[in-house]
Structures are given as structure tokens and as C-alpha cells.
């Protein structure tokens, strides 16, 4: 008796310690989750904080006097004259007029406020409207990137402001008078890459991504589904089938960069396909996403209950009819969900595309599957490597666009899984 009581006593005494341990263990779990979620939160706030200004542009709106004599131009329909004419001068003169206290002596400093591409825009505008020559037009141009940085980030130590004190005073003056304004950055969504951050856009990269994804989707979805059907429904139980399965499982875990090496050696060097085109990118990503799609499609096929198959077979359907008429439609939501997730992975993939040359500096928006292109994540990579902070801002903005695409794709997948998938 005494022995038992003392044992109970020992247990009771140890209880406090054991409960403390229990609480501590629980706290570790909470801390671990807090760390993970904290990292997620930091990542998002950091990127949004760095990038939201990328969605704004700084413009200069002013009355431009299109004086033919000043531009050495008397016939805007003449190609040769347009080529020779001076389109910088009217901009500089107009801006000098807008700035009180600025004169002809400051022309160099004033000129540094205007975007180098503004003269090209003026030229194109005049080409389109030859009757403007000799009149005064109110026009809006992009400001110089230095002005853009100053307007958005004055007082931020991370950014180096390249304007001198005189120019800063002018910019503030012009802002007050409404000549310099910030507005939604439509250039960012309507242009290709550029050496000038103010002019750089992601349209080229988005179109490149869409072309690449299109190739990936039309190849990987049918092939993946067909492979899954074969493996689940038709494959005999033998060594060869096992070998295929081992291959698929291993390919799912092969680092993506290896697929880049494959693309470089096979598609480009062996087949002589051109570099940096969406077709080759799509082929490489197809090989990369196939295992994911096959594995999820097989799971979807497996989840169709045998009673469906048996019922179909019972009324005389052939094996192929059972699969194509009954199993496949029922498994389709699961297959689509898996494919969307695979496509989201492919959309965010960068490394293999670097190796097949989709990392080139490309200004034009690609207009076909065999046209040099880059994709959204590679564009982020290119801009992130730039020493100019104005590009970093754009890289963050591009990341936000990329994440928006990915999150909506994943949300669609989750919605489909909830909505369409049947539980048996």
C-alpha cells in the first residue's frame, strides 16, 4: 500500500513539471508557425512597400509652342525633314517658360528634367498631326527618371537624388503649379523593356509569358492526361510500367535547372531551334510540369469509385469507352485543378529559361511563337540586378503583378476543387 501511495505521490509531484513541459512544447509549435507566417508577412510588406510607387508615373504637362523655325522644320509630312528636325528645343523652351526665374542660361539644367524619349513622342505626335506646326498645343510628357525618383522618394535615404538644389526647387515649384504631376503608370502596362526606368514596361514580358504558357498548356495537359490514363487503366503490371513510374517520380524532383540544360543541349544545339523564343521555353516547361500533371491526374482517376466502372462494363462498354465516357469526365475537375497548379509553377519558373536564352534585353512586344521574348519572372530577375533603384521599384511592381496572376490561378484551383470535385 505505502509503495503504491508513494508512487502516486511521485506522479503527482511530477505533474507540475510535466504540464510545464507540455505548455512549452505547445509554445514551440506556436512560435514555429509565427516564424513562418511572419516571414510571409515580411515578404509581402517588403515587396509592396518597395513597389507600390512603381505603379505611378511622373509627367510634365505644358503648352508646347511648335515653332517651325525653332525646329528647322517647315513640312512635317517630309520624312527627311522629320529626321533632321530638332524636337528637343521646343520642349526645353516651353519648360523654361513654365519655370519662373529660369532663363536661357539654365537650358542644360532644364533639359535634364525632361525624359529623353519625350522628343520622340513629340515627333510622332507631329507626324500624326502635321497641321499642328506653328500652333501651341498642351501636351503631357514623361519626366526624367531623376525627377520621378525625386518626386516619389524625396527624403528617402535609400534613393540617391541626382538633381541639384536648383533643380529640386524648380521641381517643387512646378509640382505646386500642377505642371509636374504623378498619375497611374499606364506606360508600365503598355510598353516593353527599356534602358530608361520611366519608360520600361512589362507588356512584352506578359505577352512572352502568355505565349510560353500557351505552348506549355496545349502540350502538357493532353500528354499528361493521356499518360495518367495509360498508367492507371491500361498499363500491365510489369517491369516496364514500374520503370515508367520510377522515372516520373524522379523527374518530379529533378531540379528545374537540369531541364534548362536539357533544353539547351537538345532543342537548341541538336535541333537547331532559335534561342530565347517562346516555343522552346514552352517545350522545356512542358517537360518540367508533366510529372506534376501526371501525378495529380492519376490521383483524380484513382478517386473515381469502381462501381462506376463496373456499371459501365456491365452494360457492355469496352474498356476504352468506360474510360473515355465515364471515368475521364468524372476525373476532369481533379485533373484541371492539378494542371492549374502545375501551370502556376511553370509561370513562376525562371532558372531553365535563363539557360535557353530568354534573358536577353528585348524592347519589342513579341508577336509570335518564334519571336524573341522574355517572361515575367525573368524580367523581374533582369530588373532586380540593375544598380538603379528606379528599376528595383519596377521589379517589385512586376512581382506584384506576377503574384496577382499566381494567387488568382491558385484561388481558381481551390475554388474548382471545392465546387466541382465530388466525394463518393
Amino acid at each position, binding site marked *: 500500500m505505502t509503495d503504491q501511495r508513494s508512487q502516486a505521490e511521485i506522479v503527482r509531484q511530477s505533474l507540475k513539471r510535466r504540464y510545464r513541459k507540455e505548455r512549452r512544447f*505547445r509554445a514551440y509549435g506556436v512560435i514555429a*508557425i509565427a516564424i513562418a507566417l511572419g*516571414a*510571409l508577412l515580411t515578404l509581402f510588406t517588403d515587396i509592396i512597400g518597395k513597389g507600390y510607387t512603381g505603379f505611378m508615373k511622373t509627367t510634365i504637362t505644358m503648352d508646347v509652342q511648335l515653332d517651325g523655325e525653332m525646329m528647322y522644320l517647315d513640312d512635317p509630312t517630309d520624312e527627311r525633314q522629320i529626321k533632321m528636325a530638332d524636337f528637343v528645343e521646343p520642349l526645353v523652351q516651353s519648360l523654361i517658360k513654365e519655370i519662373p526665374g529660369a532663363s536661357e542660361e539654365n537650358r542644360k539644367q532644364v533639359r535634364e528634367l525632361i525624359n529623353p524619349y519625350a522628343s520622340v513622342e513629340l515627333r510622332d505626335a507631329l507626324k500624326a498631326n502635321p497641321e499642328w506646326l506653328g500652333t501651341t498645343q498642351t501636351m503631357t510628357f514623361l519626366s526624367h527618371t531623376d525627377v520621378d525618383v525625386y518626386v516619389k522618394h524625396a527624403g528617402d535615404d535609400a534613393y540617391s537624388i541626382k538633381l541639384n538644389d536648383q533643380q529640386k526647387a524648380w521641381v517643387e515649384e512646378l509640382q505646386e503649379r500642377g505642371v509636374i504631376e504623378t498619375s497611374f503608370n499606364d506606360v508600365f502596362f503598355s510598353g516593353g523593356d527599356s534602358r530608361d526606368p520611366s519608360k520600361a514596361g512589362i507588356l512584352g514580358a506578359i505577352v512572352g509569358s502568355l505565349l510560353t504558357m500557351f505552348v506549355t498548356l496545349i502540350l502538357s495537359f493532353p500528354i499528361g492526361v493521356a*499518360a495518367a490514363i*495509360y498508367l492507371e487503366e491500361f498499363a500491365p503490371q510489369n517491369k516496364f510500367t514500374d520503370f515508367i513510374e520510377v522515372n516520373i517520380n*524522379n523527374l518530379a524532383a*529533378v531540379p528545374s535547372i537540369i531541364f534548362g540544360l536539357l533544353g539547351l543541349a537538345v532543342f537548341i544545339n541538336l535541333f537547331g531551334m532559335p534561342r530565347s523564343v517562346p516555343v522552346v521555353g514552352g517545350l522545356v516547361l512542358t517537360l518540367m510540369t508533366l510529372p506534376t500533371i501526371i501525378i495529380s491526374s492519376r490521383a483524380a482517376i484513382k478517386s473515381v469509385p469502381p462501381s462506376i466502372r463496373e456499371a459501365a462494363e456491365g452494360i457492355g462498354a469496352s474498356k476504352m469507352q468506360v474510360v473515355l465516357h465515364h471515368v475521364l469526365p468524372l476525373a476532369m475537375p481533379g485533373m484541371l485543378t492539378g494542371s492549374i497548379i502545375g501551370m502556376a509553377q511553370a509561370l*513562376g519558373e525562371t532558372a531553365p529559361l535563363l539557360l535557353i536564352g530568354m534573358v536577353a534585353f528585348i524592347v519589342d512586344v513579341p508577336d509570335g511563337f518564334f519571336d524573341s521574348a522574355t517572361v515575367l519572372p525573368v524580367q523581374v530577375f533582369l530588373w532586380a540586378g540593375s544598380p538603379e533603384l528606379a528599376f528595383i521599384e519596377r521589379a517589385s511592381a512586376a512581382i506584384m503583378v506576377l503574384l496577382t496572376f499566381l494567387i488568382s490561378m491558385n484561388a481558381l484551383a481551390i475554388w474548382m476543387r471545392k465546387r466541382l470535385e465530388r466525394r463518393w
Partner: protein
Amino acid sequence: MQPANLLLLTLVLAIVAYWLGYARSRSLAMPLGGIRHLKSLPFYYGARAALWSGIPALIVLGLWAAFQGKVIQLIVIGGLPDGMMPASQGEASLLLSKISNVASGALPPGFAEAPIVDAAERLKALQAQSRLLMSTLVISVAVLAGFLGWLRIRPRLNARAQVESILKWVFFACAALAILTTVGIIFSVAFETFRFFEKVPFTEFFFGSHWSPQTALRADQVASQGAFGMIPLFTGTLLISAIAMIVAVPVGLLSAIYLSEYAGKKVRGVVKPLLEMLAGIPTVVYGFFAALTVAPFISDVAASMGIEASSQSALAAGAVMGIMIIPFVSSLSDDVINAVPQAMRDGSLALGATQSETMKKVIFPAALPGIMGGILLAVSRAIGETMIVVMAAGLAANLTANPLETVTTVTVQIVTLLTGDQEFDSAKTLAAFALGAMLFLATLLLNVIALKIVRKYREQYD
């Protein structure tokens, strides 16, 4: 005709063949007294004709499109005068890009030598010829095969069986593509790796402790010979992966335990998708975060403590990579922990053990092999991760174990060696493939072992 348009045309032809086959089977059945006198439904006769027309045409199209580029290149190079024959593959690719620039109009003909301009003309002519030939061949194959298929339609023909067996072979081909991909990977890295070892001795690559792949471009240039010792890359990769695992394993494992054993349904429903979100973020975003936020932060903190830290420290890349791997570890551990039978849990709790004691003394030991398998898979992912290290780790191949210094990794070197200007047979480019081969072998080994452990463990409790 462009291959994409030709593809569409082939599909249109297949659809036409379908309708013709369908119509013919019906018209054959009419005199017999309706389609019930056919062996199969009219649909199958149509589908058979479509497959007959489409599949051979697609095969021809695929082969032609795949090999035409290389064949044209060889003919163009072969047609150059003797004096301009390229001595190496590197020169050949340089010449080719010049020729294609002239052909596309990017380089005005005045700036190139006369043979190049001639070659460009020949290139254009050959491309036009090839396109014409391909179009004729593909269309005639589609029409001819479709016609044959159409002609052979008989009421007694079992079209359904034929269509089904063709489809089965198509499905098989799709599944076998996985093997083809593996073979492609092995061959593409193996060939270049052998050629690399012809130039650089085996021992230097595996036991050399110095990595600097810059080789002299011209014979008379005074430059470093190029050193290809992979040990610094290997240790750099291991260092960064180790840091990543130190972050990811405890955090991932503990959060998996908390979510599966303690958290209520509501908490689980919110936290789990959020954790999975970490896995869905592209690696280039992590790289951006590591290079522009974490690395400067670490070097600032280190500086304020009086320690010198590189602005491209291994710690930054490793820590961010660890964050990326957290959901990977946690979801794998979650699966394994949930696979432990409820009876073991109940038994331990019934004996008076607290939940944490049950976890630590009963479930964790039972789940350990599976968790180890999961961790091995995570390690293989860390070794093969590219973008984070390309953006946040440096290029300097230091042999160090200090996480605050710059190290470089195998993947970083592959990317740097293969992006930008390259000649295809220099030791520098071949080295990238040799590194790729090592990476492939290492990850393959880890995956095979891990999958084996995970599978064996699953069988134990199934």
C-alpha cells in the same frame, strides 16, 4: 507555311477526314438497311479516318520541324568557301549568327563579307524551300493517308477496335515520354561531361580546391589557365543548404506537429493554406527578397556588432531558402504524422502520458523514418535551387565555413557559365554540363533513397 499554321491545317484536314469517313460509313450502311448493319457506330469510322489522316501527318511535321534547322545550318556552313570554313563549333555558331543576322536584315549586307552575304541568300532560299517542301509533304501525307483510310471503310470493318488500339498506343507513347525525358537529360549532360573530362583531368575536377573558369580566349593572351576544382562549389552548396535546413526543419516540423495535434479545425483551415502560399511564391521573388532586403539587413546587423559580413553572405541566401522549404517539410511531416495509427496515440494517452509526451516518445519515433525521407527530399530541393542563390549568393568561389562570407554554388556556376556569350566547346561551357551531371546524380541519389524510405514506411502502417 509556318509550322503553327500547318499544324492547324493538319487538324482541319483530320476533321474533314472525320466527316468524310462518317458520311461514307452511313452511305455504305444505307443499302444494307441502316447503321445497325455496320460493325461499329459511324462515329468510329469517322474517328478512324481522322486518326489515319492526322497521326502520320503530325509525325512528319514534328520530325521535319525538329530537324530542319540543324540540317539547313549544316548545308549553309558546308557551302562556305574553303577559306572561311570554321575550325571549331564555337566559330561555326558565330558565323551562323552573323549569317542569320544578314538574312533577317538586322545587319546590312554592306557590313559583311561577300561569302557571308551569299550564305545569307542561300539560307533564305533554303528556308523557303524547306517550308514549301514541308507543307507539300505534310499536306500530301494527310490527304493520302486520309484517303486510304476512307477507301478501306467496309461495313464489316471493326472500326471501334482499331480506334481503341490506336488510342491505347498514343496513350502509351505519352507515358513513355517520361523515359524519353530522362534519357534526354542523361545524354545531354553525359556527352558534354565526357568531352569536358577530355580537356580537364578527372582528379582536378573532383579534388581541386580552386575554381576559376576564366580561360584565355586567344592563344597569345596572358590570362589565367582556368582552374576547375569543384570542392569550393560543393562546400558552398552544402553550406547554404545546411543553413536552409537549420531554418526549415525545426520550423516546418514543429508547425506540422502543432497543426496536426493541437490546432483546432478553424486554425488549421487558415494557417495551412497560408503556409502553402510560401510554397507557391516563385523562387525569383525569394531571390529578390534575399538580395535586396535580407542580405543588406544581415550585413548591417553584423556591422553594428562589429563583425564584418559580406553583402552577399551565405546566411542571407540560406535563410531565405529555408523559408521557401518550410511548407515542403511541414506538409511532408504532416502526411507522415497523420499516417501513424490512431491506436498508438490512444494507447499512450490512456496510460496517462501528456500530449507532448505522446508526441515525443511514441508518434515521433514511429514517424521518424518518414520524416527523414521528407527531409532528404527537402535537401535535394535545396541543393538544386537556383534563383535564390543566383541573385543573393556571390560568384567568388571561397572555400569557407563562415556563413557571413560569400560562397558560390553549383547552380550559380551553371547559370553564369551558360548565360551570356559562350562557345560550345570551350572547357568553360563544358564545365557547366559536368556540374549539371553532378547535380543530377546527387539529387537523383537523394530522391531515390528518400522515396524508398517514404514508401517503405507507408507500407508498414497500411
